[in-house]
């Protein structure tokens, strides 16, 4: 038994798995060689430790919403997937001519479903700056998008070509798996970029590659991601042409009662962070709230928020006054950005 032979049999020897045709004599020869050869003895103990370490490497968690988005991709026929034989939704026509593709079917049961139906039938819209749309399928583009500063009279400045991540939302109901939101995303004014979505407080992420030539991507988020709360809380880290940006979106989920939130409300919140306050506002008013490109310090700032018979945007605007933040509103929700924007 020399070192070369010893090394060839090392794995099996360590695992006690030497071929049965190899007799006890071989095992004995291995042991004797290791006793006499410091190098092979060192190898043996290193290999044993290595094996143990390899066995206990922790399992990596799949990305956030991996399964939901895989199935959505198959349903759409993305990535060359064959279309399934039976579509899970039926019956209702698309209610979003511009975003296109939502269809609703007859629903099995459930308060959440009733609330969504309510919001389809009785959307709240208005021409004034404080208007919003209650959750559901009629929400169009979320705030923070190209040209959308929230002021309905704003005309997009053609010289402003800052890269933008546009996020649109469409609600889909799947009776088998539970309701979901599909968010469509695409990049504007940039050649390529990425977007990484997380649930705030959760390490797992779902990542997209984006590019100016690419079709919009879709992120499917099960409404169960609200985890019993009134909002789905998404953190988005996105990059475009080498620059990175942060966005936090608080998207209300349909209410289980039949009432739409009041457009103007009065309440007081205990002192909390801006992040939590934004979430609370989204929940109470049933309107999406987006924080865009705010630093961690700003987002973590402690504030007191109260509403005095005000709309969501009025409440935020008044409570955030003097902090170098701008609050804008569109038909799709409220946007908070730094006052001095690099380009818009």
């Amino acid at each position, binding site marked *: 038994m020399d070192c070369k032979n010893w*090394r*060839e*049999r*090392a*794995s*099996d020897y360590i695992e006690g798995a030497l071929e049965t045709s190899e007799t006890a004599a071989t095992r004995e020869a291995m042991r004797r060689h290791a006793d006499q050869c410091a190098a092979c003895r060192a*190898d043996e*103990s*290193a*290999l044993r*430790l*290595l*094996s143990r*370490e*390899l*066995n206990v*490497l922790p*399992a*990596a*968690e*799949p*990305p956030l919403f*991996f*399964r939901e988005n*895989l*199935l959505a*991709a*198959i*349903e759409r026929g993305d*990535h*060359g*997937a*064959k*279309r*399934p*034989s*039976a579509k*899970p939704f039926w019956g209702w026509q698309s209610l979003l001519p511009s975003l296109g593709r939502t269809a609703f079917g007859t629903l099995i049961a459930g308060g959440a479903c009733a609330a969504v139906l309510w919001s389809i039938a009785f959307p709240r819209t208005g021409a004034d700056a404080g208007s919003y749309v209650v959750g559901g399928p009629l929400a169009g583009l979320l705030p923070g998008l190209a040209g959308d500063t929230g002021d309905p009279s704003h005309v997009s400045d053609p010289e402003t070509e800052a890269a933008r991540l546009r996020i649109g939302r469409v609600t889909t109901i799947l009776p*088998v*798996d539970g309701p979901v939101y599909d968010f469509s995303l695409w990049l504007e004014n940039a050649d*390529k*970029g*990425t977007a*990484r979505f*997380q649930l*705030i*407080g959760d*390490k797992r*992420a779902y990542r997209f590659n984006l590019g100016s030539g690419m079709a919009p991507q879709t992120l499917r988020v099960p409404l169960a991601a609200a985890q019993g709360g009134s909002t789905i809380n998404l*953190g988005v*880290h996105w*990059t*475009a042409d*080498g*620059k*990175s940006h942060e966005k936090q979106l608080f998207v209300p989920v349909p209410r289980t009662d039949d009432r739409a939130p009041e457009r103007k409300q009065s309440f007081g919140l205990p002192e909390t962070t801006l*992040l939590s306050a934004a979430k609370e506002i989204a929940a109470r008013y049933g309107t999406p709230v987006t924080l865009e490109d705010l630093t*961690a310090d700003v*987002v*973590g700032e402690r504030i007191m928020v109260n509403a005095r018979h005000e709309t969501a945007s009025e409440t935020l605007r008044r409570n955030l006054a003097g902090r170098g933040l701008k609050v804008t509103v569109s038909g799709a929700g409220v946007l908070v950005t730094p006052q001095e924007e690099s380009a818009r």
Partner: protein
Amino acid sequence: MAAVNADERALIERSRRGEIAAFDQLVRAYEKSVYNTAYRLAGSYDDAADIAQEAFVRAWNNLKSFRGDSAFSTWLYRIVTNVFLDDRKRKRARPQRSLDEAVALDESSVTRQFEGGAPGPEEMAEGAERRMVLERAIQSLPDAQRIVIVLYHSQGLSYDEIAEITNLPMGTVKSKLNRARLALRDRLAPMAELFSE
């Protein structure tokens, strides 16, 4: 690894007929092991997500060719390793990285904002450092050795199963595993004190 049981056979049959709800059940059962295999092979979360997704899409598209001779999991593992090898071939043909990858790879910048604070001292404890070094060493192995190491150690598969997945004779599987372990041991030798007891 159990042979295909009756429930699983029914799900496979329904999935073959295009029933996505049945395929959903299969994905639920295997997504963790498929993803983890992809991650241990590819070494990055993002690549692993792409590989795992493509593996399931291939499985969905090719269910008709699954004959039930082997376990469904064996078939799936074979698909994952093939997707990994295809991905490696593609990357070797196209080596430049995008500008945004360097930025996007900084995953910690997202979590930092919400979890607060830099990683604590426990994060860089010896165990974690050992793990990182070992993971990097696995990434330096040639593809075939990497596959055998990952299937054996991370997925806990037997020589038999690995032989079926890789279409290699058992003797070859054993010798590749041996060579892989020796290669890792040699690569880690300069850091002996990190790996000694």
